[in-house]
Structures are given as structure tokens and as C-alpha cells.
């Protein structure tokens, strides 16, 4: 029977995996050989980020005008590569004059926050502070 165990990994690898997981969703878990988690997180974050951008959601920039803009930037930057490719994926830019664009803004922010949660889990697994099933993915 599978037993839960803490499995500390090289701290340097954990940090590299966390950075990779931030930049490409799921890559951090893939580097730690958590294949099923890597696939699920990749598709969840990619789906939210792409649909958010295709709906012409707003992407907040780093020169925030107020605290809410800064929170929006911190959420958006969590989606890693999608933040930097936003202009390529949606060359028309944001359009929040319609409800659809506003929903897209929320979806893109959700993608970023979800990816940040995944990065935190990579650090937990990497530093051995989270129990993982020995025989599980």
C-alpha cells in the first residue's frame, strides 16, 4: 500500500523548478516528476489564460496607478510566459467596454493566481514540507 512520505529534494532544484513552474505552468511539477499534476496545472492555467486573452481581457502593467492596479499586475504576472505573450496572443488589446472583456480580465487574473499556487506547491514539495504519496504521481 502506498505510504505518504516527505521526500526532500535538492533545494537548488526546488528553486529552479519553482522558477520554471512560474514561467511555464506545470513545468515545475514536471521537473519534480509529478506528471499528473504537471499536466492538470498546465491545462488549467493555459485554458484560463488563453480564453481570458481571447475575450480581450485587460492585462495590468507594472506602472500601476493605484493599489487595485498593482494587485491586478501581481495576479497577471503570475501567469508567467502568458503575461509576456499577451500582446502576441491578443494583438487587438483589451476591450473592457463589453462584459466579455471584463470576464476575460478575471479569467486571466485567475490563471496567474492559480499558477502562483502551483509554484508554492512546487516549493513545498521541493523542500519536503508537503507529504506526497510514495507510489503516486
Amino acid at each position: 500500500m502506498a505510504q505518504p512520505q516527505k521526500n526532500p529534494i535538492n533545494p537548488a532544484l526546488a528553486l529552479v523548478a519553482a522558477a520554471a513552474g512560474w514561467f511555464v505552468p506545470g513545468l515545475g511539477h514536471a521537473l519534480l516528476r509529478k506528471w499528473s499534476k504537471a499536466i492538470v496545472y498546465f491545462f488549467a492555467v493555459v485554458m484560463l489564460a488563453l480564453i481570458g486573452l481571447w475575450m480581450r481581457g485587460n492585462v495590468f502593467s507594472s506602472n500601476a496607478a493605484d493599489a487595485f492596479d498593482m494587485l491586478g499586475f501581481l495576479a497577471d504576472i503570475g501567469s508567467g510566459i502568458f503575461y509576456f505573450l499577451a500582446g502576441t496572443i491578443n494583438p487587438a488589446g483589451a476591450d473592457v467596454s463589453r462584459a466579455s472583456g471584463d470576464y476575460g480580465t478575471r479569467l486571466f487574473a485567475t490563471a496567474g493566481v492559480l499558477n502562483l499556487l502551483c509554484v508554492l506547491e512546487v516549493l513545498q514539495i521541493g523542500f519536503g514540507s508537503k507529504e506526497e504519496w510514495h507510489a503516486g504521481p
Partner: protein
Amino acid sequence: MARWAMILNHFQTMVIFGLAVSLAFAFLSKKSTSERVRYAVWAFLAFLLVAIGIGWLMYPFSR
């Protein structure tokens, strides 16, 4: 370059949000496959039902 936008209504957006977040939360918080499936289904339905319930609660104040 084509300038198009995906147009989804509130409910469709909510379904996509619920699917992605409930799946990710299930994998973040549960270890076995059966636990993950149960949690993902429960969270997805809870997202939808709570949102629809709150929508109906706000309906009398919308006009």
C-alpha cells in the same frame, strides 16, 4: 492581423472558471484519485450552485 474576440456569456465563463479551478484545487489538496474526483465534482457544482443562488438573491434588486 485579424482582430476578433471570443464572446462568452457570464454562465459560460463561470463554467470554464469552475472547471479549471476545481480541477486544480482537487490536485492541490487531495492525494488519491478517488478523493480528487469527488472533490473536483463537489467544488465544481458548488461554484455553479452558489453563483446561481447569489444571482437569484440579487435579482429583486436589479430593477
